[in-house]
């Protein structure tokens, strides 16, 4: 099994940089949204960084992921350009999707990022399709489907478990169980209470993992990805974690227990845990990490400035790209 502690210094720095980038990106968007600069619905990934990054560490551009309405973290982890993402979220013409997609539809197919998705669970079949392409075209690629605890009850996801199993597809299902679907608790909404058993009911090897612990996610996901890559078929990773912000920006979150998020932040923050672990084990030192923090802050500040400065799409853009032009 892949051991996270055997990761190279560069890999560890990349992991931290990606996690830090996601955090910084989301915190900044939270602020900008508050100031009124960002249009539409925004769902932030802050708090869940170790999942996207821990999983995507084992993927390259030939591998594909399908994502969710809460997709910024997956995008960063899969290598999407941060400035392009920011421009997209601001609705600008040189955003990753020319401003036509927005937060809920960021995609970069060249990176194997098949799209955030406004339809919960819809990424299941899409990931199966990408896995089918990888299998039949023998690219050696795999596909990862990210989705939430609430979305795990969608027919689209449940059918995909079965299809992936009987077609023996190289796909890994990663449930990001942050305890809530909007305001509804996952402890209530998941019949039977165990997604590991749920996976087992479809013949999927399944495992639960602490989603605040990058190393735990990385190791569990790497094994499942390796399993898929070597032709042994699909599996399911149940990742327990917490979101730091509301369901969407504007959510008053009265359904949560008082102090719930603060407790996670102080005890189980993924960045803190990572920092602690790498310093304790001597893999990196505080200075390394501080340098990344600074670098990332600069990147995100620059991305926001660029996004604000860049221009909007124009009337001519409205009608293009409905169909392929011949």
């Amino acid at each position, binding site marked *: 099994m892949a051991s996270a502690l055997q990761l190279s210094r560069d890999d560890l720095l990349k992991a931290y940089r990606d996690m830090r980038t996601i955090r910084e990106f989301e915190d900044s968007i939270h602020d900008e949204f508050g100031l009124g600069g960002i*249009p*539409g*619905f925004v769902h932030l990934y802050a708090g869940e960084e170790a999942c996207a990054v821990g999983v995507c560490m084992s993927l390259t551009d030939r591998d594909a992921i399908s994502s969710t309405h809460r997709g910024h973290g997956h995008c960063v982890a899969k290598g999407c350009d941060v400035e392009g993402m920011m421009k997209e979220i601001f*609705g*600008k*013409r040189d955003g990753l*999707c020319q*401003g*036509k*997609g*927005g*937060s*809920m*539809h960021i995609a970069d197919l060249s990176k194997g990022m098949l799209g955030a*998705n*406004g*339809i*919960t*669970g819809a990424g299941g079949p899409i990931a199966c399709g990408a896995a089918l392409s990888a299998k039949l075209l023998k690219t050696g690629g795999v596909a990862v489907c990210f989705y939430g605890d*609430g*979305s795990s*009850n*969608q*027919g*689209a996801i449940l059918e995909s478990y079965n299809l992936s199993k009987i077609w023996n597809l190289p796909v890994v299902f990663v449930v990001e169980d942050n305890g*809530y*679907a*909007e*305001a*509804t*608790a*996952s*402890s*209530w*909404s998941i019949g039977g209470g165990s997604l590991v058993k749920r996976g087992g009911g479809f013949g999927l090897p399944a495992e639960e993992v602490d989603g605040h612990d990058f190393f735990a996610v990385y190791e569990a996901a790497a094994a499942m990805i390796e399993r898929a890559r070597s032709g042994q078929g699909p599996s399911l990773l149940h990742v327990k974690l917490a979101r730091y912000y509301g369901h969407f920006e504007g959510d*008053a*979150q*009265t*359904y*949560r*227990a*008082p102090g*719930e998020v603060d407790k996670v932040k102080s005890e189980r923050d993924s960045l803190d845990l990572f920092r602690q672990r790498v310093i304790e084990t001597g893999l990196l030192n505080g200075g390394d990490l501080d340098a990344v923090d600074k670098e990332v802050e600069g990147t995100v500040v620059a991305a926001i400035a660029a996004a604000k400065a860049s221009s*909007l*799409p*124009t*009337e001519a*853009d*409205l*009608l293009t790209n*409905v169909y392929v032009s011949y």
Partner: protein
Amino acid sequence: MSKKSFRQAINEALRQEMERDPTVILMGEDISGGTGAPGEQDAWGGPMGVTKGLFTQFGESRVLDTHLAEISFIGAAAGAATTGLRPVAELMFNDFLGTCLDQVMNQAAKFRYMFGGKAQTPLVIRTMYGAGVRAAAQHSQSLYSMVTHIPGLKVVVPSNPYEAKGLLIQSIRDNDPVIFFEHKVLYDMEGEVPDEPYAIPFGQANVTREGDDVTIVAIGRMVNFANAAADALKRQGISCTVVDPRTTSPLDVETLIETVEETGRLVVVDEANPRCSMATDIISTVASRAFDALKTAPLAVTAPHTPVPFSPALEDLFIPSQMKIEEAVRAVMARESNRAAAE
């Protein structure tokens, strides 16, 4: 009578019908909110707060949070409707019809006919539609045309708070499956709404402006744009009739024809995509049944044949505007038809 928002009007209609009839129940994703959670139950009242307070008043056997899986809960609402309940199910965004259309189209809509009239399906599906809040391609569609195509469904598209309350009460009392479309931009719109319950019958269009020159037929939110355009045009010397069909199925064809017979000109305003839409439906109906009354070609003001773009710069161009309606009306006024020339 007092000023209420569209949101309040809907909430009040639900509350009053639930008070009147114990078989009326609500279900949907977070229509209460907080189920199973450690904090407040009734934390949301739906994503827009439309059902807020109803859980507190009626409890968990009347206001049911569902899991996040539309096939099953929309289908369960249909099944419950044939077996004694009158469920009002909330399909959060009409864009999610794609996840549960079978239960709507092949089950609820067809039970009655398929079973030789022996089933009754008093189901209401409340759903949010429309562009304008930068919610992008999968949360901004206007899909009433799609369900209007399907026999067995009744389709309601209210244009203001008064209409919303009266039409929703009628929807709940109706014994057929009804899809009730709420435009997300209208929730904060205010208007005079009677405090007591009242029902607005289906298939009876509302003529909101009377004029001689052009009939403007508009759907849902667009009725307000059409009214504004008519008022502006009046100042420019063009007098318009504005028709709000209220329900696209059944459609009040008589009123459409009557008003076109008076004006001789037709502009249809529909926020939906243009192909096989209510815009084509109304123009086709008038062209087929009131052709001789038409002085010139009818015109449609619709969204383009594109998904809804995210960027505000594009979305604003996507949505029909008062300006575009005025231009369309002026265009039909300006057209010198061969027929007019021949007369």
